[in-house]
C-alpha cells in the first residue's frame, strides 16, 4: 500500500463544515417514524451547544420521496427545491442543512445538475417566479444533519453522562453503523469518508466510546429502496434485502445499529418484526431484536436525556436491553405515558419478537 496515495484519496473525502448559522429543513417522514429525533437535534444544537439554527414553518417536502418513487419528474423536484432555497435566502442564511439523507442527496444532485446544465437552472428560476414570485441564491454549503453532529461529536463527548460501554463487562459496545444510500453513493466527495468508508457515524461511535463492527453486507441497502417498498408487489424484495443484511451481521453479535437516514432505522426496526413473524427468527439476545437508533437519539442518550422523552417507546424492537447495558436509568411504568402523564395506550405485543 502506498500510504501517501491513500492519504491523498482520503483527504478528498473530508469536508470543511461551517460551525454555525444554519437553515434547517426537516424530513417529510421522520416525524411519523421517530418523532423525537429532529426535536432532539435542535435541542442539542440550539439549546445545549448554543448554535444558530433557523427553521421555518413554510418549508415543504423536498419532493425526493416522489422523485425516487418515479411519480414526479426532476423539473418538479427542482422547482420545489428552488422554493426551499428561496426561503433560506429570505431568512438571510447561506448554509443549508437537511435532516433527511434523500433530501441531502436530492439537493446535491440538483446543484450538480445546474452546474452542468446552467440553462436548466435559468428555466427553474423562471418557473419559480411564475409560480410564487420568489427568487433564490444557491446555498454556499449544503450539509446533512449527521455531518453537524459529527462535527460537534467531541463537544457532545465532553458533556456526555454515559459512554457506549457495557457496564457489566467494561467492554466497549459493539455497534453496526448503517449509512443511507443517498448520503455518499451518488456523490462520494460530498460525504465524510466517501461512499466506501463513510466516517460520519463511525466518528460518533468512536468518540462516545463504542466499537464499530465490520461485516460483509455493511454497505448494502437497508431494503427500503422507495419503489421497492411503496409498490406492494415489490415489497418482498425490500424485505429480502433487509433479511440479507441481518443474516450477514448476525454472527458479529452487534449491541445496536446506528443510522443516519429516515428510512433505514424504520425498516431495519420494523422488518425485524416481520422476519420474526414469517421466519420465526430474531437477531438479538434472548429473543429480542437488535435495537436500531438514529444518531440524534444516540447523542441524546449519551447526554443523559430520558429515553421515553426522546421517543424510544416508538421503536418496534425493545431498547431496554441496550439501556441496561449502558446503565441508563428508566422507569418501565412510564414507557407508554406521554406528556402530563397522559396514557398513550400499550401496543399489542408480537408473538415471536420479544419486546419487553
Amino acid at each position, binding site marked *: 500500500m502506498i500510504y501517501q496515495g491513500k492519504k491523498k484519496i482520503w483527504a478528498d473525502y473530508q469536508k470543511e463544515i461551517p460551525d454555525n448559522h444554519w437553515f434547517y429543513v426537516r424530513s417529510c417522514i421522520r416525524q411519523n417514524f421517530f418523532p423525537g429525533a429532529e426535536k432532539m437535534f435542535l435541542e442539542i444544537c440550539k439549546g445545549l451547544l448554543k448554535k444558530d439554527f433557523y427553521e421555518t414553518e413554510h418549508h415543504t417536502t423536498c419532493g425526493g420521496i416522489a422523485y425516487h418513487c418515479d411519480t414526479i419528474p426532476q423539473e418538479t423536484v427542482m422547482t420545489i427545491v428552488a422554493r426551499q432555497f428561496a426561503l433560506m435566502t429570505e431568512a438571510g442564511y447561506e448554509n443549508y442543512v437537511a435532516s433527511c439523507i434523500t433530501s441531502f442527496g436530492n439537493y446535491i444532485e440538483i446543484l450538480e445538475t445546474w452546474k452542468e446544465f446552467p440553462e436548466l437552472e435559468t428555466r427553474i428560476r423562471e418557473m419559480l417566479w411564475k409560480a410564487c414570485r420568489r427568487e433564490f441564491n444557491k446555498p454556499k454549503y449544503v450539509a446533512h444533519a449527521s455531518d453537524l453532529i459529527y462535527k460537534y461529536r467531541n463537544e457532545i463527548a465532553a458533556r456526555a453522562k454515559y459512554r457506549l460501554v457495557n457496564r457489566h463487562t467494561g467492554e466497549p459496545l459493539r455497534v453496526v453503523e448503517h449509512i443511507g444510500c443517498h448520503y455518499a453513493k451518488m456523490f462520494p466527495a460530498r460525504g465524510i469518508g466517501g461512499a466506501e468508508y463513510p466516517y460520519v457515524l463511525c466518528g460518533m461511535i468512536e468518540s462516545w466510546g463504542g466499537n464499530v463492527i465490520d461485516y460483509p453486507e455493511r454497505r448494502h441497502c437497508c431494503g427500503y429502496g422507495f419503489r421497492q417498498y411503496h409498490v406492494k408487489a415489490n415489497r418482498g424484495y425490500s424485505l429480502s434485502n433487509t433479511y440479507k443484511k441481518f443474516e450477514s451481521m448476525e454472527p458479529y453479535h452487534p449491541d445496536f445499529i446506528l443510522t443516519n437516514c429516515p428510512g433505514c432505522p424504520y425498516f431495519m426496526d420494523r422488518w425485524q418484526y416481520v422476519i420474526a413473524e414469517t421466519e420465526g427468527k430474531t437477531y438479538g439476545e434472548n429473543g429480542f431484536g437488535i435495537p436500531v437508533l438514529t444518531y440524534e437519539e444516540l447523542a441524546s442518550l449519551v447526554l443523559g436525556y430520558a429515553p421515553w422523552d426522546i421517543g424510544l417507546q416508538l421503536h418496534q424492537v425493545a431498547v431496554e436491553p441496550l439501556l441496561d447495558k449502558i446503565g441508563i436509568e428508566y422507569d418501565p411504568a412510564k414507557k407508554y405515558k406521554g406528556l402530563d402523564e397522559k396514557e398513550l395506550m400499550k401496543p399489542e405485543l408480537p*408473538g415471536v419478537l420479544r419486546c419487553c
Partner: protein
Amino acid sequence: MDFGFRISPSSAVNLDNVDLEKFEELHRIEPDVYKCMACGSCSATCPAARFSGMSLRKVILALQRGKEKEALAMMKNCMLCGKCTMVCPRGINTRHLILSICRIYKEETK
C-alpha cells in the same frame, strides 16, 4: 402471519458447487461458445421462441451456471431451422452448436 408478501428465495448461484465438466467439453468442441456476447439476436429471430420460450442466449447462460435441466427443456423446442446462424453478429454456427449441446448433454435429453 401472512403480510401479502414474503422473503424472496435467494437466486444466488454458487459456482463453486457447479460441475462444469460438460460445458468445458462443449467448449473444446465448439470454441465459439465463448464468442457469444449474449446480444439476443438469435432469440429475437427464433420462430419457436414466441410460443415455446426457446432462447439460445438463455441456454448458453444456463449451461454456464450449471442449470442443465432448465437449458435442455428449452432445447427440446428447437426446430433446427438455422435462422439464428444467419443473424449471429459474431458469426457463430449456432445450429452446429445446438447439435453439439444435444450430443454432449444427451443423457439428460432421454
